[in-house]
């Protein structure tokens, strides 16, 4: 049976994501019987969710990014020799 330390190590390193069935079942069993490891699991998930919310907000200057997209799209239609300065802001 997994200890809390083994469970926490396997979870935080991402090892469980690619693990075999036996390992995942052992982890699931430990999760079911250990409230501390359930709390740890919730904490890591909340941190990941928070990071996604933080970075998936709109960029501070969406117009600048839209402008950059237009410049790059324009460059896609330009032959390599002609492309030199077309993305200079």
């Amino acid at each position, binding site marked *: 049976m997994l200890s809390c*330390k083994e469970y926490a190590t396997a979870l935080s390193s991402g090892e469980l*994501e690619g693990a075999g069935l036996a390992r995942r079942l052992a982890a699931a069993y430990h999760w079911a019987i250990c409230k501390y490891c359930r709390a740890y699991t919730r904490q890591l998930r909340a941190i990941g969710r928070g990071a996604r919310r933080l970075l998936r907000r709109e960029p501070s200057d969406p117009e600048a990014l839209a402008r950059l997209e237009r410049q790059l799209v324009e460059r896609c239609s330009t032959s390599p020799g002609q492309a030199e300065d077309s993305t200079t802001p």
Partner: protein
Amino acid sequence: MTSAPLEDPELVTKVRARDPETLERIVRAYLRQIERAGRGAGLNAHQAEELAQATFVTFIETAPRFEGRSKVRTWIFGIFFRKLQEARRGFAKDRKLDDIDDVFESRFDDGGHWIAQSSSPTTDLDSKEILREIDDCLDSTPERQRLAFILREVEQLETEEICNIMGITATNLGVMLFRARNRLRECLESKGYER
């Protein structure tokens, strides 16, 4: 904006031929993701845009060299990673010894049980203020660990893809993710979020 995978079976041929419509689709699909990864890696908005620009200019120019051995997204993130390393000369390699390993060890007794544990932090960790704290804690996370965490948690890339982009083994990646996640957790706890 989502970055739907580009499922065209002739994608490699079209990228190599610098087909304008294909390149344009790729720019539109991945520009925001690359800009966001730059901010996630610790660049400010302006630096992240510049890095995204440099990444896609290189992608467009080197498109004829794309062999299709990896996904287009992996190829673009690989360019992004090399540009990031150039921009950040101090983009240090991850240390063999890291103090977070000792902090993690200290949380368990000899039998591997938690010594002291927090109550559920879910409510606090989902609060609006937490985003500022996560931002602060990310700033104190070593750069490679931080990038590995962002590529996994925010961009949700697969292990193999992150390893190809960063030129590391799956074992290295596991160590980086372990350290990043536990460091962020300890950092937030030190700010009073998890007790």
